[in-house]
């Protein structure tokens, strides 16, 4: 049996375990809310109900996926250690890196299911209300998925050396700063203070700039996106995710599982 097969086995049962839990009920609740909002939008908005529906759908997709990433990422390893299930797996011919890779792939699978359900509903509602489904919307959805994967890896990374609450809190703070850092750098307040500017530049260099993966404004304001911008953002997100993932594997290999 090859390594890839073992990764997929761990991923499959991780996905199965989570899908059978009630975590994805939130997706269904949001889906129902989306339909209600769409109905209300058709009744009370003038001329742009499809925009309201799309805006709400993308927002909810993003929020629910961020919630799922933080919740699942923070509890992934502590739960495995507390319930001693990690011992059952890595006491078999399964290297630690295979275990953690399979777990992360399984969690990305859960995110993908959430995305598949909510984005299908969002796009269907927009289409039914007469909106256009263009490439920018699809890209915005895919980049939100990439953002959530990056966030998930960030939470798992912090959960390796802090507790649930701290890893979630630190990740939320980094997520918020990562969205605000660019605009904050451009404010007069920061530009008039050299030290603050340097601190933010350093932050920008080290911690993830989530704003680069946020394409929702392009959708809302009907702006086109240049291919170079898309590629640049994608490479940034993918490289940062790969770096975090390698760090997770390195730390998990070193970690005392007690």
């Amino acid at each position, binding site marked *: 049996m090859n390594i890839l097969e*073992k990764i997929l*086995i761990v991923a499959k049962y991780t996905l199965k375990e989570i899908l059978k839990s009630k975590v994805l009920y939130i997706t269904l609740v949001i889906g129902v809310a989306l339909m209600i909002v769409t109905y209300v939008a058709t009744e009370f908005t003038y001329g742009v109900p499809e925009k309201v529906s799309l805006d709400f759908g993308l927002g909810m997709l993003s929020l629910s996926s961020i919630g799922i990433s933080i919740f699942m990422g923070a509890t992934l390893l502590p739960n495995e250690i507390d319930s001693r299930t990690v011992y*059952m797996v*890595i006491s078999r*011919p399964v290297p630690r890196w295979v275990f953690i890779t399979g777990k992360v792939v399984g969690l990305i699978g859960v995110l993908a299911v959430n995305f598949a359900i909510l984005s299908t509903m969002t796009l269907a509602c927009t289409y039914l209300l007469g909106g256009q489904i263009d490439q920018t919307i699809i890209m915005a959805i895919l980049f939100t998925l990439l953002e959530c994967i990056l966030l998930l890896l960030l939470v798992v990374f912090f959960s390796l050396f802090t507790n649930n609450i701290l890893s979630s809190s630190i990740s939320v703070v980094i997520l918020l700063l990562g969205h605000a850092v660019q605009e904050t750098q451009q404010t007069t307040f920061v530009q008039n203070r050299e030290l603050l500017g340097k601190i933010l530049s350093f932050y920008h260099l080290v911690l993830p700039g989530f704003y680069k993966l946020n394409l929702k404004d392009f959708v809302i304001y009907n702006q086109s996106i240049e291919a170079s911008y898309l590629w640049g953002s994608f490479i940034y997100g993918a490289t940062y995710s790969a770096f975090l993932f390698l760090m997770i594997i390195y730390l998990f290999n070193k970690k*005392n599982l007690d």
Partner: protein
Amino acid sequence: MLKFQEITKVFKTDLIAQPFTALNDVSFEIPHGSMVGFLGANGAGKTTSLKIIMDFIRADKGRVEFDSSMGKNKIEVFKKIGFLPERPYFYPNLTGTEFLMFMGRLSELPREQIKKQVAVWAPRFKIEHALERPLKTYSKGMLQRVGFLATIIHEPELIILDEPLSGLDPIGRKELKDVIVEVHRAGKTVFFSSHIVSDIEEICDRVIFLKEGKLVYDGAVDSLMNSGKQNDYLIKFRSVGNISLSAPHHNWQHFPGNLNVITVNEAAKSAALQELVGGGVEITGVELIKPSLEEIFYKIRTQ
């Protein structure tokens, strides 16, 4: 099969607290084909030792070595090990079948072989009726049994169990002990920790005894039992009237039905018996006082 050599493990909980030495230069061996009990009070270092053997945590000093017959690298060795942690909870939303398939597949078994193994063992563990139910609906005993099935599903050479009998009712304990003995008779090496001395006395041929992170005893159960032997005998007899005994004795106990029990040492045994028979009493039994492993364990623990 397994050598645990000069292992020391110190835990540092935080920067201020004093480091805690969980294992202090502990060495022992698990011979091929043996059934070894790992004894010690709570906190003696048993689970820490097992975690070091399984490479869940790393020792500060010393090394764990597996016999070359187990394999050349960790992956090969771990194919031949079955490990059951203490009080496992498993994945609550998976069914018993899914969980066993998951564990079996990770042990590189084909699906068909897993199904065969489950068909053989599930009735023995009385869990076949529950296999399609989520594990969160299982009782503690059922979880322990499904965990043990997962541990032996790939027919490992070395079975390591951390407190496998804890939390089971008397019938469950008996059934699990019977299976442990059965797999041992099939040629498997079994190493299991317990703080319940009678379980180890009942089924193990060797015992390793830890006290406060140090090795206190490593050897045959019989030798440990003999080391605690005092060569005292109990003489049980019935007498109707008052009777005196000049042979050295102690601890004379009277019971209903004119039953008396005295304790004598080996040197005084014959003289005491002759005197009692000469006095016309009915001797109902003579037996060597054999302390249980529990008593020896308690004695060593409180020394």
